[in-house]
């Protein structure tokens, strides 16, 4: 018994890559005009607010952005620089912007990954439980807590967690990604980072946990009322197998799509979580850039994050097609 392999959807991939490139172009243009919207000369906006009002720096920016050129060639130059990842130099951080951003990426991805895993697993566990006890007390409790969490400011929940679990109970560190002074290596370092990761990941997942619980609950209730579930029951298979093999897999499909559309929100939320927990990622970088008025760095982070979202969406669509055989990628 050998399943038939489906062909890899190259045409779909090519189309999506082309669309992604176009989207990036438009996002670059939007950014360009956003910069133009800034009061005064863009170079001064870029530099002056950075607090360094150094005339040499301003002249350099002016040349770098080609601000003496006509608008269209400025735009062209801007796009070319983005395409070649030449994002300029940050005088605030004394580092090339691309290097700065990419060095912060892994921390953010780790935090985001952990938060997504918590939200998805929690969403499934509690959502399935709520659906199994629909309109009885476990469901009512879960649904109400989900509603509460849905309205909770995520940065505030982070602070409350620090207050309770770090300050009062002393279970976890209050901030940072690792205990640098301990000079941990190997496994010890992994454990140390994981220990630091728990609270920020939980705090960042809370809002999505609430959404996913509601989604899984509604999905399970809908799927459990479908005909094929009754047919499966008539086959004599167990309720467990029915719940997990048939109902859950169908109910989780929409969740995959929603997680995909939430990737951007997770990145945006990282600004808050990473600031609250002093987590050395892109979000914290964005906070610092904003604080220091490093507009060029801010815009670069925005553009690269959008790029990341586009790639993530493509990956999610491919993944979706793998777990849902009825989807034809075209």
């Amino acid at each position, binding site marked *: *018994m050998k*399943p*038939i392999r489906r062909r890899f959807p190259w045409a779909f991939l090519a189309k999506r890559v082309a669309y992604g490139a176009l989207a990036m172009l438009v996002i670059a243009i939007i950014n360009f005009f956003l910069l133009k919207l800034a009061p005064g000369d863009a170079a001064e906006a870029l530099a002056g607010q950075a607090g360094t009002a150094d005339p040499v720096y301003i002249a350099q920016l002016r040349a770098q952005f080609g601000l003496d050129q006509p608008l269209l060639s400025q735009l062209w130059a801007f796009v070319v620089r983005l395409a070649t990842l030449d994002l300029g130099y940050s005088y605030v951080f004394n580092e090339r912007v691309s290097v700065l951003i990419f060095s912060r990426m892994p921390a953010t991805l780790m935090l985001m990954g952990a938060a997504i895993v918590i939200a998805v697993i929690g969403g499934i566990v509690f959502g399935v439980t709520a659906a199994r006890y629909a309109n009885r007390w476990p469901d009512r409790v879960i649904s109400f807590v989900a509603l509460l969490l849905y309205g909770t400011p995520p940065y505030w929940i982070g602070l409350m967690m620090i207050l309770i679990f770090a300050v009062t109970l002393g279970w976890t560190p209050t901030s940072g990604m690792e205990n640098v002074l301990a000079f941990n290596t190997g496994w010890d370092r992994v454990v140390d980072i994981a220990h630091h990761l728990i609270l920020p990941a939980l705090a960042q997942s809370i809002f999505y946990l609430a959404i996913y619980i509601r989604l899984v609950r509604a999905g399970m209730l809908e799927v459990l009322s*479908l*005909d*094929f579930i*009754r*047919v*499966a*029951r*008539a*086959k*004599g*298979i*167990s*309720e467990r197998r029915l719940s997990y093999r*048939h109902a859950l*897999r*169908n109910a989780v499909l929409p969740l995959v799509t929603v997680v995909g559309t939430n990737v951007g929100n997770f990145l945006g939320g990282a600004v808050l979580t990473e600031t609250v927990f002093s987590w050395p990622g892109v979000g914290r970088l964005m906070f610092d850039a904003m604080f220091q008025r490093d507009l060029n760095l801010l815009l670069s982070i925005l553009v690269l994050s959008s790029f990341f979202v586009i790639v993530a969406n493509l990956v999610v669509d491919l993944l979706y097609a793998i*777990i*849902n*055989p*009825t989807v034809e990628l075209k």
Partner: protein
Amino acid sequence: MANPILQVENLQICVRKKPGVLILRGVSFHVNAGETLAIVGESGCGKSMTSLAIMGLLPDAVEKLSGTIRFKGRELPIADNRAMRKVRAAEIGMVFQEPMAALDPLYPVGKQVLEVIEEHEKLPREMAWARVIDLLTKVDLPNPETLAWSYPHKLSGGQLQRVVIAMALACNPDVLIADEPTTALDVTVQAQIMRLLKRLQRDTGVAIVLITHNLGLVAHTADRVMVMYAGNKAEEAPTRDLFLSPRHPYTRGLLDATPNPERASAQGGVLREIPGTVPSIADPMSGCRFAPRCGNASELCRARFPEPTIEGAHGYACHHPGTDARV
């Protein structure tokens, strides 16, 4: 010769916690090994509830009030989901009306047939899979090895119903309940599916309970017929007797509405309605529930429920049965 394999006695089903709202009001019938029993009756009279009760698959909103269901002489614990799992598919298989919605869209059809065998029999995987292919061949599906790996959305309604039949018969059950198995299919496919069911019955000796609105189908395929009305059994007889000398006025109405049952399927095959409406399941009327629509109804009918009369293999529940044979 009569060898009842399935016996339903005085089955009463009500809406959960509402013993006054009766969906089945005391239905008794039996199914002999290897025969085909047809159940007919207007929409809402309780045909599906009867079959779901036998499978132990009553919806949550509904419960058994009283009565017994015996399979091979022992009572089925229909409220005990765990115990009923061993009966489902292994001893009593079921085929539903909507083949398009009957399979999980996320698994290849072969795997879904395999699931039945894995659940009920400890077989090495290769043997179980060989059995799946064999079953798909037996239900006349083309290229079973390839088709087994197809997902449901790639198959037609007729093909899906064949898969569902394969699933229902995978563990050689003694009884197959087919609840309107062809209603959702177009006419030519309907005939193919019925021929398939009859052939499988000849090959395996499975008894079939055929629920249908199509009297033409009944005339062709059933050995005996049970007519239901508003949660009661109105009449039960060998097919020939029922068509030639129906006793219950409701049965007569049904047959009159279909002038020539032999041609019924060509005429569209669906029962035409008798004037008037079925009483609500919550209506506590004490007499015959057909009385408001019955031409023969008397004071007696409205006052007292007609107890069943049995004449050999022919039974009916009516105070004033018609006697004239139909031509």
